[in-house]
């Protein structure tokens, strides 16, 4: 017999029904939480903030409407309508109020909102003026940091406007001892305090808030037990009646007490997961090592014959569906950066335990199976890979990749464990890591990682080198001298580093301001109850209660900067084909490519705004005239030729991503301009900064705020994705690209790196395709890459590429041993390749 049960398990018909009803309606914004929160806050104005938070949480859980959806086995919904969201005015609200009329029709992640909800929220919002974390953060922030945000150097928008999330609590502990156990722990800590202790007042209030929050959760679960009983009474179908009776029993027991079965553990898990997202609006609340903490319950039930594998699978599938039932409304700009309604609830399987042994088990396989069954984006499924990973688990994961769903993401234990040790984690804790959100490693139940603190656009400081720190007439960056006067590449690179250091410092200021604001206005007692050392230290995570504290803002655009600086080094200083003054002009003129309608609109808006600011009235006709001039902004024939020659020369230079050591090692140095200065900074919770190198999907909207770059990238085009090579510049295939990316220092980017590759489905066809795919990842990981994920190109993508070839210049398809740039193929060949996506 195999060590693991790795065979496919048939999908229950219930799962299809649940998925269908989840997507039957459109996501909606519901106002209940905001109303209840505000009611409570109005009653508690004289009390300490931690108490107010706990009381508000209690008030919400007592009165928020609850629902058991048809056919559900795992219950607990934060909204009445499926896939809908509550709102969180304590963080920010003005943007949503402004977007009430457009939120239902916008292209990225629309939400419906009823007139009634709008009206209710309008009323509620009046209370919040001046009381949000966002407003407090803003008033803490240094003016020059705010200015840098306005000029799109970096965006700390995630936590500026929302809760933090980005945590994996100690699920296993709640499963084992229930909230009664945690209440007991907090009570014991409380009992040991003396009223005369110097920090008694704050500590005791915190511990009381923990107890109150946990009691609120118990009460909430009792409401579900009651509702299930009532529905059971009304139910005419005997099978469903039995199911509802079981649900009632489960909710009566968990999460109050420790789980006594796998089913109870599943229900308990879900209450924790869901309620964390009622307490705060943060996303990336990540279940982490689900296959580990759930296993004892599964193994015991299987052994005693209490459960079948099929039913265990059905329960896991149900949880997967519930993870997609949660949702979050973001402002329009952020919605583009995080497109796809994603909550980034990262759940990871496989890997080592604290003692360094591989702990793959049946559930590791069943989690992958669940993603195949539901075919939904949540959870963000990940897999830990190391030399001891069983081959069959790896192959199972590859089969999921082959479906084209973009899951799982693959992580390398061999890099992540030492990189976390380097940040001060014990070996045991580092070995037990999981992933938060997109790619951010940490130890569950002990860490407040602030993993998605900001996006830092590494291209913008280079623009500021060319303008001596000026942007749109304002001194945004450091004064690094007139670029025309720079005489060596070292001097130029020095100026870039100086800009980077200055702007990274401003980013740290902005982030720390936000950090402090969360500590003061939105400490989270419920979340803190499940993270060490909060109870021991008697303070919330937001005030530094966690054992490990980090802040991880992301840098992106490495490939663009590597190629840009390399182009300057070669063309300006070595080959002397062009001067820096000429380069500056070429960039300003967008290489003579003029402006497209989008840019013309942007220019027009700028001009009109400056006219209005200068106190001048602007007529419709004048606006039209400005637009016309902008669109036709002239470049002479001679200049156009000159710019084309320059682009040609840039094009011929070697680029990052092609396994050319000279360029790749250059990229490594460029990455250090971000990662090294950053790790010298500290955050207000007593922890350190650590860099990540990944953009989520922000490389597109933030690229749209970036002018032309010396790597030949035209203005406002997307910048490179994560640590991946620039779009279309890696022409030597996946092994060459992987070798290049592996040459970056992944250890220092301990907040995670993201490397994306695209494949045609035929590359993974058959057993051989899976084996080769697994070997490709293993080889990249042998070279100490940290993360890899894959888009298997779908039929839809190829159809879109036919329609919009300019968006897909780098789309390489490999078919029958041939690889070709898809958009360069004739129509009929494209059709053939599209037809081949149907084979496996």
């Amino acid at each position, binding site marked *: 017999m195999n060590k693991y049960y790795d065979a496919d398990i048939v999908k229950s018909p219930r799962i299809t029904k649940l998925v269908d009803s989840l997507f039957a309606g459109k996501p909606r914004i519901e106002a209940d939480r905001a109303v209840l929160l505000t009611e409570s806050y109005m009653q508690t104005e004289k009390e300490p903030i931690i108490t107010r938070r706990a009381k508000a949480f209690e008030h919400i859980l007592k009165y928020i409407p609850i629902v058991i959806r048809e056919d559900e086995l795992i219950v607990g919904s934060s909204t009445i309508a499926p896939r809908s969201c509550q709102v969180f005015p304590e963080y920010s609200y003005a943007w949503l109020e402004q977007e009430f009329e457009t939120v239902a029709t916008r292209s990225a992640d629309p939400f419906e909102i009823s007139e009634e909800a709008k009206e209710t929220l309008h009323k509620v919002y009046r209370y919040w003026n001046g009381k949000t974390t966002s407003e407090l953060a803003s008033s803490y922030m240094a003016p020059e940091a705010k200015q840098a945000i306005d000029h799109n150097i970096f965006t700390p928008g995630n936590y500026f406007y929302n809760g933090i999330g980005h945590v994996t609590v100690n699920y296993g502990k709640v499963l084992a001892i229930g909230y009664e156990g945690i209440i007991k722990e907090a009570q014991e800590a409380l009992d040991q305090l003396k009223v005369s202790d110097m920090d008694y007042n704050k500590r005791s209030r915190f511990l009381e808030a923990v107890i109150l929050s946990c009691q609120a959760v118990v009460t909430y679960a009792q409401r579900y037990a009651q509702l299930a009983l009532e529905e059971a009474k009304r139910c005419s179908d005997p099978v469903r009646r039995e199911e509802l009776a079981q649900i009632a029993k489960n909710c009566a027991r968990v999460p109050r007490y420790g789980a006594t079965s796998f089913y109870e553990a599943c229900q308990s898990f879900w209450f924790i997961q869901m309620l964390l997202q009622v307490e705060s609006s943060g996303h990336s609340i990540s279940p982490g090592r689900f296959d580990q903490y759930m296993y004892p319950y599964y193994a015991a039930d299987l052994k005693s014959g209490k459960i079948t594998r099929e039913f265990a699978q059905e329960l896991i599938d149900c949880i997967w569906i519930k993870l997609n039932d949660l949702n979050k409304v973001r402002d329009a700009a952020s919605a583009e950066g995080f497109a796809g309604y994603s909550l980034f609830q990262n759940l990871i399987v496989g890997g080592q335990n604290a003692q360094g042994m591989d702990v793959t088990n049946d559930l590791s396989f069943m989690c992958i199976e669940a993603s195949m069954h539901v075919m939904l984006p949540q959870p963000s499924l990940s897999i830990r890979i190391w030399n001891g990973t069983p081959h069959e688990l790896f192959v199972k994961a590859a089969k999921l990749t082959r479906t084209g769903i973009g899951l799982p993401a693959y992580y390398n234990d061999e890099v992540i464990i030492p990189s976390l040790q380097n940040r001060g984690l014990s070996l045991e804790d580092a070995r037990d890591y999981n992933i938060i959100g997109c790619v951010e490693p940490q130890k569950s139940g002990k860490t407040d990682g602030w993993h998605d603190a900001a996006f830092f656009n590494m291209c913008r400081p280079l623009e500021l080198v060319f303008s001596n720190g000026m942007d749109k007439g304002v001194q945004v960056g450091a004064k690094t001298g007139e670029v025309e006067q720079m005489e060596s590449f070292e001097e130029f690179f020095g100026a870039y580093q100086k800009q980077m250091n200055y702007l990274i410092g401003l980013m740290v200021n902005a982030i720390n301001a936000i950090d402090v604001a969360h500590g003061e206005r939105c400490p989270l007692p419920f979340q803190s109850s499940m993270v060490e050392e909060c109870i021991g230290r008697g303070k919330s995570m937001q005030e530094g209660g966690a054992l490990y504290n980090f802040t991880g803002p992301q840098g992106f655009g490495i490939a663009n900067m590597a190629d840009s600086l390399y182009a300057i080094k070669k063309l300006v200083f070595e080959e002397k084909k062009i001067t820096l003054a000429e380069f500056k002009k070429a960039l300003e003129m967008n290489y003579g490519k003029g402006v497209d309608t989008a840019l013309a609109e942007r220019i027009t808006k700028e001009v009109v705004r400056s006219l209005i600011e200068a106190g001048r009235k602007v007529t419709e006709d004048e606006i039209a005239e400005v637009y016309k001039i902008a669109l036709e902004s002239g470049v002479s024939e001679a200049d156009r030729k000159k710019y084309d020659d320059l682009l040609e020369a840039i094009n011929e230079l070697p680029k990052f991503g092609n*396994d050319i050591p000279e360029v790749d090692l250059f990229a490594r140095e460029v990455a250090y301009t971000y990662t090294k200065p950053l790790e010298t900074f500290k955050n207000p919770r007593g922890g350190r900064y650590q860099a990540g190198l990944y953009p989520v999907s922000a490389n597109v909207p933030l690229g749209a705020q970036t002018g032309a770059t010396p790597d030949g990238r035209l203005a406002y085009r997307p910048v490179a994705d994560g640590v991946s090579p620039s779009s279309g510049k890696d022409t*030597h*295939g*996946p*092994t*060459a690209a992987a*070798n290049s990316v592996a040459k970056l220092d992944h250890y220092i980017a301990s907040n995670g790196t993201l490397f994306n590759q695209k494949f045609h489905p*035929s*590359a993974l*066809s*058959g057993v*051989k*395709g899976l*084996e*080769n795919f697994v*070997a*490709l990842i*293993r*080889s990249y990981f*042998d*070279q100490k890459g940290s993360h890899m994920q894959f888009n298997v190109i779908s039929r839809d993508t190829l159809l879109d590429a036919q329609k919009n070839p300019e968006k897909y210049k780098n789309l390489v398809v*490999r*078919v*029958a*041993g*041939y*690889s*070709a740039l898809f958009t*360069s*193929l*004739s129509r*009929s*060949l494209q059709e*053939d390749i599209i037809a081949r996506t*149907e*084979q496996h």
Partner: protein
Amino acid sequence: MNMEKKAVTGRIFDIQRFSIHDGPGIRTIIFLKGCGLRCKWCCNPESQRPEIQSMKVQGKEKIIGRDVTVQEVMEEIKKDYNYYRRSGGGVTLSGGEALLQPDFAVELLKACQDFGISTAIETAGFASFDVIGRYLPYVDVFLMDIKHMDCKKHEQFTGRPNELILENARKIAEAGADLIIRVPVVPTFNETREEIMDIANFAKTLPGVKELHLLPYHRLGQDKYEGLGRTYDLAELVPPDNVHMSMLAEAAGRSGLQCQIGG
């Protein structure tokens, strides 16, 4: 190997990394320039002539063919060593025809084996067996095409008769080499059940041969003919569909060989 041998030059027109349909595992393919056959469906028409030539690619003239030393090619091959090791892959010499530059090819194959890299060649088998004999000790897998059993039809579509090819296939097999037979399935040429079964039955008689790969015709090389200023004779040809390919694989499988669609 001494430096002198590493300096032997050959003429290649491409090196393609991460090839996964041309022998086991992840492979680097070295495409040698020059071929003895002129298959009408050839998807690499720029490979056929031995001399360096120009081809228009996406509106730009591109030089096809360059002379390289064994050492230079080895530098490129070694870059993916780790991938070969992890996947059981290696290097495949293809073409054009890998048998037409024996001095270079054999030295290159030796150099690979010396480095611990597994080797394969893709060949039409149209060369004297004396030449093939020089390759035998250094090739781990032969991927050899048998395109048609009917000599006339073979000559009509490839420009050459098939007797020498069939004879070589037998001799390679008898020499104990690991041999896989491959058949490009080309409509109007060899796509019928009977034609494929004839090939399979022949392959079955070759000692030690266990696998037969049916490679469906595709049109990926079509644009290149235009780039070379040539006309593509099979412009109207439509690739065989999946159903037809499955039928052929099933029929060929009756010979007792393991049959698969694609490499």
